C-alpha cells in the first residue's frame, strides 16, 4: 500500500512558566492511502498536539525537538508558511473539536462553504497544469536521450526495430497532450449531463414521495430545481432521442404546478414528473463509450464517428488508437522509464559513496568543526539531489526530504552549543538568587527551573542517523531494482498524466460550488439547507455548527482528513450519520483519515488501525480487531473497562488518579502509577515496543518473557467473550 504520511521520532514540548512540558515523546507511525488510523487516549495524552503539528498550527510556545512528518516528499515540520498554504485545508484538512473556533462569526455559512471550493479550485487548476506539463516534458526529454543512446529494449523484450528522431518523439508527446484534453472535454460534457440526470431523478423521487404523503412543502422551489437540472441533461449519450419530449414536458411543468397549487391537488404534476422520471431512467441505463479512445479518433482521424452500437464502437476505437498511437507511446514511455532507472541507479551508487565519506566526518570523536561538516554535507546533498529519479510517480520521501533533514540536524547541533551555554547561565543565575534568599532564611515561593540542556552527543547521533537512514534506503532500492515492473509503472505514469489533465480542466463555478455546498449540507443532516445557506454561524446550534465544519472540511476534497473528536458533541443518530458520511467519502475518494477520539465505540466503527496514546507515547498499536479482541497494554484494558456498553451490569473500573505531570515525566512506564498490574521494573525503566504479531505492538513489560502471566480484568475478558459470541451468531 502507498504510504501517505509518515511520522518519525516526533518529540514536541511546550515551554511554560514552570518548565518544559513534554507533550509528545518520540512517536512513530505511518498512514496508508485509504485507511483510517484512530488515535485513542485521554485528554492531555498528546493526540491533538500530534495532529496539529501536521498542519503547522501548534501554539506559539511549542518546541519541536526532533522528528519528521513526511507528506508528498516534504517534511511538514520544516517547510515554510507559504508552502503550508498549499497544503493546509487543500491536501490535509482538519475537523476541529470546537466548531466555533473554525467558523468565521461574521460571514454567512454559504460563503464559508463555497469560498474554499472556488479558491482552491483555481489553485488546483494551475498546479495540475504545471505538473502535467513538467512531467510530459521530462518524459519526452528522457525518451529522446534513451533512444539517442540506444540499446534499450521494448515492452516485449526485443530490440526496438524502428527508432525515431528527437522531433518525432517530441511530437508523440505533444499529440498525447492534445487528444487528452479533447478526451476530457468530451467526458466532462457527458459527466455534467449524467450527474444532472442522477440528481434530477433523486429530486423527482423525493417530490413524488412527498406528494403521495400529502406533505409537499415549497413546491415552486423544488420544481424549479428539477426543471433546472433536467434541462442540463441533453447530451449525445444521455438524453438524446427523447430530448424533444423532455423539453415539452418541462415547459409545461411550471404551468401545471401553478394550477395544482391553486386546487391543492398535485395529480397533474405527479403525472408529468413520472413521465420525466421514465425518460431519465432510460437515459441513465444507456451504455457509455470510452471517451479517451474517442478523443484520439476525433482529434486525429479527421473523420466523424462511425454509426454503430456503443460496444462495437468501443472496440473499433480501441483498435484505431492502438494501431496509430497508444502502443507506440507506451513503448517509448517504458523505454524512457527503464533508461531513467538505470541512469539514476548509477547516481545513487555515487551518492552512497559520498554518504560513506560524510559519515566519517560526522561521526568523528569530539566536537565537530563547522566548516568541514558543512562542506561534507553540501557535497552529499548535491549527490543525493542528483540521484532522484523525477519520473517516478511515487515520490521517494527519504531522498526528497534529505536535504532539509540533514541541514536541520546539523543546524540543531551547532545551535545547541551557544544555546546550552545561555540556558546554563540563566539557570545558574536563578539558582544563585534562590540560594541567596535561602541563606537569608527566607523560603522563596518559586522554584528553580532546571536548565533545558540539549545533549550534544545525541544531536551528533541525529546527524549520523539521517545519513544512515538514507544509506539503508538506497541500498534497499538498489537491491530490489531488478524486480521493478516497468509496464505497470508506465500505466501509472499515464494515469497520473490523465488525472492532472482532468484537474486542469475541472473548473469550479460559483453556481456549481453553491449546488455542491447545499448538497453537502443536506448530506451532513442540515434540514432546509437552501434557507440556512444564507444564515450566520450564531444562528446554528452547537451540533449544527459542528456539521457545518465537517461540510467545510469535506468541501475542499482533501487528501488526508484529520478528525479531532468530530462527533463528541453530537447525539448518536447524527453521529452515526456523520460517521457514515465520512466512511462513504473515504471509500469514494480513497481518503486517508486520522481519527482522534476517546469513544471506543466510534473507533470500532471507523478504524482500520488503532494507536493508543498515553502521556505522549504510543503504548499500543495494531489493527482494530487486534486491539479490541486481544488488547495487551494495561492502559488499553483500563480504557475498555471504564466505559459501559449495552450489556454491562457490573461496576465500572475507573482508572484511579490522573495522568502524570509531563514537566517531570516518570522514569519508567508513565502509566505505572495508575496501573494495578505494574511490575517493579515499570517504575525504573521504560518498556520497549514488544511485537505481538506483525501488525500488533505494545509497550508493556508484561509482554517480556520473564514477566508473570497476567490476565486482563474480568470486565474486559467478559466483554471480549460476549463479542465473540455475538460474532458467532451473525
Amino acid at each position, binding site marked *: 500500500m502507498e504510504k501517505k504520511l509518515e511520522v518519525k521520532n516526533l518529540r514536541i514540548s511546550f515551554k511554560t512558566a514552570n518548565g518544559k512540558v513534554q507533550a509528545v515523546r518520540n512517536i512513530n507511525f505511518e498512514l496508508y492511502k485509504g485507511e483510517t488510523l484512530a488515535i485513542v487516549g485521554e485528554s492531555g495524552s498528546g493526540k491533538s498536539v500530534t495532529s496539529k503539528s501536521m498542519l503547522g498550527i501548534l501554539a506559539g510556545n511549542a518546541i519541536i525537538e526532533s522528528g519528521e512528518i513526511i507528506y508528498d516528499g516534504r517534511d511538514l515540520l520544516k517547510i515554510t508558511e507559504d508552502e503550508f498554504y498549499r497544503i493546509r485545508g487543500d491536501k490535509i484538512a482538519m475537523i476541529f473539536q470546537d466548531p466555533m473556533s473554525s467558523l468565521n462569526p461574521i460571514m454567512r455559512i454559504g460563503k464559508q462553504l463555497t469560498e474554499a471550493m472556488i479558491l482552491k479550485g483555481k489553485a488546483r487548476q494551475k498546479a495540475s497544469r504545471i505538473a502535467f506539463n513538467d512531467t510530459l516534458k521530462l518524459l519526452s526529454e528522457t525518451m529522446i536521450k534513451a533512444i539517442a543512446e540506444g540499446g534499450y529494449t521494448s515492452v516485449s523484450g526485443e530490440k526496438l526495430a524502428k527508432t525515431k528522431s528527437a522531433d518525432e518523439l517530441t511530437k508523440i508527446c505533444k499529440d498525447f497532450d492534445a487528444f487528452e484534453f479533447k478526451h476530457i472535454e468530451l467526458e466532462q460534457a457527458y459527466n455534467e449531463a449524467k450527474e444532472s440526470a442522477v440528481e434530477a431523478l433523486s429530486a423527482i423521487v423525493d417530490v413524488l414521495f412527498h406528494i403521495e404523503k400529502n406533505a409537499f412543502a415549497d413546491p415552486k422551489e423544488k420544481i424549479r430545481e428539477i426543471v433546472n437540472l433536467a434541462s442540463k441533461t441533453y447530451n449525445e449519450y444521455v438524453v438524446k432521442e427523447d430530448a424533444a419530449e423532455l423539453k415539452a414536458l418541462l415547459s409545461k411543468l411550471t404551468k401545471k404546478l401553478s394550477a395544482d397549487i391553486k386546487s391543492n391537488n398535485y395529480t397533474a404534476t405527479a403525472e408529468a414528473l413520472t413521465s420525466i422520471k421514465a425518460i431519465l431512467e432510460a437515459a441513465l441505463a444507456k451504455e457509455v463509450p470510452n471517451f479517451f479512445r474517442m478523443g484520439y479518433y476525433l482529434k486525429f482521424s479527421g473523420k466523424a464517428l462511425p454509426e454503430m452500437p456503443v460496444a462495437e464502437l468501443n472496440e473499433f476505437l480501441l483498435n484505431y488508437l492502438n494501431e496509430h498511437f497508444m502502443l507506440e507511446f507506451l513503448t517509448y514511455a517504458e523505454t524512457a522509464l527503464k533508461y531513467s532507472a538505470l541512469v539514476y541507479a548509477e547516481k545513487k551508487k555515487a551518492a552512497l559513496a559520498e554518504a560513506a565519506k560524510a559519515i566519517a566526518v560526522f561521526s568523528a570523536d569530539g566536537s565537530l568543526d563547522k566548516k568541514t561538516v558543512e562542506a561534507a554535507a553540501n557535497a552529499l546533498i548535491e549527490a543525493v539531489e542528483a540521484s532522484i529519479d523525477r519520473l517516478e510517480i511515487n515520490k521517494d520521501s527519504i531522498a526528497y526530504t534529505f536535504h532539509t533533514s540533514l541541514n536541520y540536524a546539523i543546524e540543531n547541533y551547532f545551535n545547541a552549543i551557544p544555546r546550552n551555554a545561555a540556558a546554563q547561565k540563566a539557570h545558574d543565575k536563578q539558582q544563585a538568587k534562590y540560594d541567596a534568599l535561602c541563606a537569608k532564611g527566607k523560603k522563596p515561593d518559586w522554584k528553580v527551573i532546571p536548565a533545558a540542556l540539549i545533549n550534544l552527543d545525541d544531536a551528533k547521533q541525529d546527524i549520523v542517523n539521517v545519513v544512515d537512514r538514507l544509506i539503508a534506503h538506497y541500498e534497499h532500492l538498489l537491491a530490489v531494482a531488478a524486480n521493478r515492473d516497468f509496464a505497470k509503472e508506465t500505466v501509472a505514469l499515464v494515469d497520473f498524466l490523465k488525472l492532472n489533465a482532468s484537474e486542469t480542466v475541472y473548473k469550479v463555478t460559483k453556481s456549481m460550488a453553491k449546488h455542491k455546498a447545499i448538497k453537502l449540507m443536506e448530506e451532513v443532516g442540515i434540514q432546509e439547507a437552501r434557507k440556512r445557506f444564507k444564515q450566520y454561524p450564531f444562528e446554528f446550534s452547537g451540533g449544527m455548527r459542528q456539521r457545518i465544519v465537517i461540510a467545510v472540511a469535506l468541501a475542499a476534497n482533501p487528501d488526508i482528513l484529520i478528525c479531532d473528536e468530530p462527533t463528541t458533541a453530537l447525539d448518536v443518530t447524527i453521529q452515526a450519520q456523520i460517521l457514515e458520511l465520512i466512511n462513504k467519502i473515504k471509500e469514494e475518494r480513497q481518503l486517508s483519515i486520522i481519527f482522534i477520539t476517546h469513544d471506543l465505540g466510534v473507533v470500532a466503527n471507523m478504524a482500520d488501525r488503532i494507536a493508543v496514546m498515553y502521556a505522549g507515547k504510543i503504548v499500543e498499536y495494531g489493527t482494530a480487531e487486534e486491539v479490541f479482541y486481544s488488547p495487551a497494554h494495561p492502559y488499553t484494558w483500563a*480504557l475498555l473497562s471504564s466505559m459501559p456498553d449495552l450489556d454491562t451490569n457490573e461496576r465500572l473500573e475507573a482508572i484511579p488518579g490522573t495522568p502524570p505531570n509531563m514537566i517531570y515525566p516518570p522514569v519508567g512506564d508513565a502509566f505505572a502509577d495508575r496501573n494495578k498490574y505494574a511490575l517493579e521494573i515499570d517504575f525504573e525503566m521504560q518498556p520497549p515496543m514488544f511485537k505481538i504479531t506483525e501488525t500488533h505492538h505494545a509497550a508493556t513489560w508484561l509482554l517480556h518473557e520473564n514477566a508473570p502471566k497476567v490476565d486482563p480484568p474480568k470486565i474486559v475478558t467478559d466483554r471480549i467473550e460476549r463479542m465473540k459470541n455475538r*460474532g458467532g451468531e451473525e
Partner: protein
Amino acid sequence: MENKNEVLLEVKNLCQYFKINKAVDDVSFAVKKGEVFGLVGESGCGKTTTGRSIIRLYDITSGDVYFKGTRIAAGTKSYKDAIAKAKADIKQLKASGASAAEIDEKNKFIADQKAAMAAAIHDHKHCPKDLVTKIQMIFQDPIASLDPRMTVRDIIAEGLIINGMKDKKEIDEKVFKMLEMVGLVKEHASRYPHEFSGGQKQRIGVARAIIMEPEIIIADEPVSALDVSIQAQVINLLNDLRRELGLTILFIAHDLSVVKYFSDRIGVMYFGKMVELADADELFKNPLHPYTKSLLSAIPLPDPQYEKQRKRIKYDPLESHDYSEEGPTLREITPGHFVYCNTAEFEKYKSELK
C-alpha cells in the same frame, strides 16, 4: 425506599413553548421514589428543557408538575385555550339561537376553567420553597457551572447560606462531609475551581447538589463533557450516592450506553414529544416506536466486527407513520411500556410483541 411504587415526581401534559417553537409538547411521565429515570433523545428534542422546566428555571407554558403530591409548577395556556374555545362556542350558539340552558352550561364551564387557572397561578407563585430545595440539579459543563472566583467551600455552601444557615462551624462540617462523600478531601475546600481536573470539578458539582439533602437530582448530561476514564469515576460516584442516600435521579443524556447502564426506566423523546417509555431492559429488548429503533441502531459499540455489520435504521416520520386519519397519543402496549401511536399502530405493536 419503603414503598417502591411511591411516585415522587409527576409531570402532566407539560408544554414549554418558546414563542412558536414547541420545545416540549404535551409530555407526561412519573418518576418513582428511588429509581433512575433516563431521558434520551437527540439534541434539540427538548430533554434539557424538560429538566429545567421541572425545577422552575422556565415558567412553563401549560401542564403541571407535582412533587411529592404538591403542585410546584403550573402553566395556564391549556385553560386559556379552553376558555377561548368556549367563548367562541357561545357566540356560535347565540347565533344559531340555542337554548339558554346550553349557553349557561358553557358559561359555567368557563367559570370552572377560570377558577382552575387561578388555582394554578396561585400554586405556581406560592410554591413552597423548602420543598423545591429537595430538587437539585447537576449541570453538563463542570467548568461553566462553577464560579471561578469562589472557593470550593463557598460554592458548596452557597445553597445552605441562601436557605438561612448562619452557623459557620456547622456549614464547614457539612461541606467537609460532602467533600468526603464525593471522594475529595477537606483540604480541597479552600481551593478554587481551576485547580481541579474535569472529573474533580464534576464531583464539586455533585457535592453542591447533595448538600441540600435532595430527594431527587436532575442530572443534565453529567458525564458527556468528561474524559472516558473520568466518566467512569463520576458514574460510579453517582451510583454509590444513589445507594447510600436513596436518591432518585432524573438522568438526561444522549449517550445510550451510559443511560442503559444507569437507568431503571427510560423515556425517549423526539421533537418535544415523548415517543416511548419503558423499563430499560424492555426498551432495549423490544423497541417499538420506529424512532427508538433508529436510535438504538445508531449506538456504536466497541466491537469492530459488529460495527462493520451494523445497519443503521433511518427514521423519517413521513414514511413511518400515517396520521392523516387519526392522530397519535401515548398508549400503554404492555404494562409499563408506553408508545406514542394511533389505534392502527397500537394493534400492530401489540401483535409485534407476541
